[in-house]
């Protein structure tokens, strides 16, 4: 039983034993909201967190729990908490140890929606988020002062093709007794396992590759189980007595289960951004084929990137899997030499060429998402980053010439042919 199984085996089996009452083999969808108590004493034990079990699906649900265990297993973590979306996971991840005036440092190389969430909405809670270029280690060292609670980065950044130096970032965070939180959405546990490099928490948008078919929203926070919450007084949310639970300290009572127990029993209880059981089921189906899909996603993306790099209308391609990428060495160390399947490139024809390209493709879908079986294309300057100035757009890696691709699982020759005809029309 202690045999260590391979990634493909775990992607199918972890968390999902046959349902014991009926023998159902695929994970059943427990679509119910609430659970019958055995008696009053059982109810009291559940509410006091003295026993394992279900009370109400805002906190825990059997179908969602299967997904949580599978994700914790794939990342090599202790426990996981699923949420309604990736953004909900990012809020839940910080919630146990943040409060008004508490500081968090985030990378400038984050998904644009995350920059807005940290920079605008989290500030409304009094959480002081600042940003630093996480490819500049001297800047990171200066930014992560001893009063910072966490450093937040993406392993493989969306879009940009930037691969974070996770081991170096973990060292800097830990020297300041801060946590390293890694958004592993684009790399997935197939390419990168941030806990192997010192990360303390991992978050994902499950909406992308993990569910994989553009059919379900979801997020997760995974705890490494390795943080000593008593190491500093920055983590009182987990060490101080909780009056709502008869004055227990989560860290003392639950040891390495404390963070995930708190995330359900306090975080989901009060923030309420719970994952729907149906979405957990769809994501479990997606995970069964994740290792297989990621292999092909990466292989297709590498071919498309190589094709674009040779195209006369293309000025540059930012893909960590290309031999001339500045992140090639990091991709070798952290992503097993692969570059993922989401990247950007620049058109010599600028803004107008970008607009013509997204309107001329016939197989790539023009939409704002990534990590689908279908290939996706976006021209940020005319869509997601439309309201910014040129200078702001360029700083965000969304200059007028930039196009983002999420390469899918179609026949790669068909994808290249589609880009070829559309690039012909877009001109240089």
């Amino acid at each position: 039983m202690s045999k260590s199984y391979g990634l493909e085996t775990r992607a199918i089996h972890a968390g999902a034993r046959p349902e014991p009452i009926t023998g159902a083999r695929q994970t059943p969808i427990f679509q119910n909201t609430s659970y019958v108590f055995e008696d009053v004493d059982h109810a009291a034990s559940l509410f006091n967190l003295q026993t394992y079990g279900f009370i109400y699906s805002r906190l825990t649900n059997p179908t969602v729990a299967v997904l949580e265990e599978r994700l914790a297993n794939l990342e090599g973590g202790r426990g996981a908490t699923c949420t309604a979306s990736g953004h909900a996971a990012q809020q839940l991840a910080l919630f146990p140890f943040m409060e008004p005036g508490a500081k968090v440092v985030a990378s400038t190389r984050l998904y644009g929606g995350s920059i807005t969430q940290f920079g605008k909405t989290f500030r409304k809670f009094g959480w002081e988020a600042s940003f630093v270029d996480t490819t500049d280690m001297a800047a990171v060292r200066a930014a992560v002062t001893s009063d910072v609670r966490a450093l937040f980065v993406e392993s493989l950044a969306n879009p940009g093709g930037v691969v974070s130096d996770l081991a170096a970032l973990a060292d800097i965070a830990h020297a300041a007794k801060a946590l390293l939180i890694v958004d592993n959405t684009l790399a997935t546990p197939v390419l990168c396992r941030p806990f192997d490099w010192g990360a303390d928490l991992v978050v994902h948008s499950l909406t992308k590759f993990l569910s994989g078919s553009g059919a379900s929203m979801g997020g997760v926070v995974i705890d490494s189980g390795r943080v000593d919450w008593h190491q500093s007084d920055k983590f009182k949310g987990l060490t101080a007595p909780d009056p709502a639970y008869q004055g227990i300290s989560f860290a003392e009572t639950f040891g390495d289960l404390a963070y995930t127990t708190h995330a359900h029993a306090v975080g989901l209880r009060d923030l309420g951004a719970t994952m729907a059981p149906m979405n957990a089921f769809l994501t479990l189906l997606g995970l069964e084929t994740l290792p297989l899909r990621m292999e092909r996603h990466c292989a297709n993306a590498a071919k498309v990137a190589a094709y674009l790099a040779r195209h006369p209308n293309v000025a540059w391609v930012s893909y960590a899997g290309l031999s001339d990428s500045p992140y090639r060495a990091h991709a070798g160390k952290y992503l097993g030499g692969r570059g993922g399947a989401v990247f950007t490139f620049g058109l010599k024809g600028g803004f107008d060429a970008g607009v013509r390209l997204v309107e001329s493709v016939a197989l790539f879908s023009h939409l704002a998402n990534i990590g689908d079986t279908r290939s996706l294309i976006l021209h940020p300057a005319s869509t997601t980053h439309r309201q910014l100035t040129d200078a702001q757009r360029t700083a965000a890696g969304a200059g007028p010439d930039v196009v983002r691709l999420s390469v899918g699982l179609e026949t790669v020759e068909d994808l290249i042919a589609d880009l070829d005809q559309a690039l012909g029309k877009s001109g240089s």
Partner: protein
Amino acid sequence: MPGRILTEPADIRALLDRVRVIAVVGVSTDWKRPSSYVMKYLQSRGYRTVPVNPRAAGQEIWGERVHASLADIPDRFDMVEIFRKSEDVRPIVDEAIRLAQEKSIRAVWMQTGVRHDEAAQKATAAGLDVVMDRCAKIEYGRHHSELAWGGFNTGVISAKRQRVRHA
């Protein structure tokens, strides 16, 4: 036959399957303490748990009379579970070894954070199995899928159908 220090999940599961009566040394009379949580949980899963705590001798915890020492427990028990600091483990293990025959003790379990390698060697030499630095509640939960209900990675992978325990 000498006992063993158990670390493999399958061995720990087999021990929890064999054991029925557990002497819980150092369990607190404060129901909010982790030791009290574990005792109550093990009761709810069909184990008889007998509390040992000299400062609370004669009182009751979760319906069971508290004894001052292992020797004071009138009945037989299979396992001794220790909720004391590592430094305080040695005399408890010595007493368990002394009583092993008379009480039919097969194992000593030291709770999460508690280890004593020397005492453990002595216990295994005397034929007792030993588990160190683990929580019986977590280990029971791991093998009966309950731990997974909270979103935890149990490490258990199996396509076998589990038997349902009927109360």
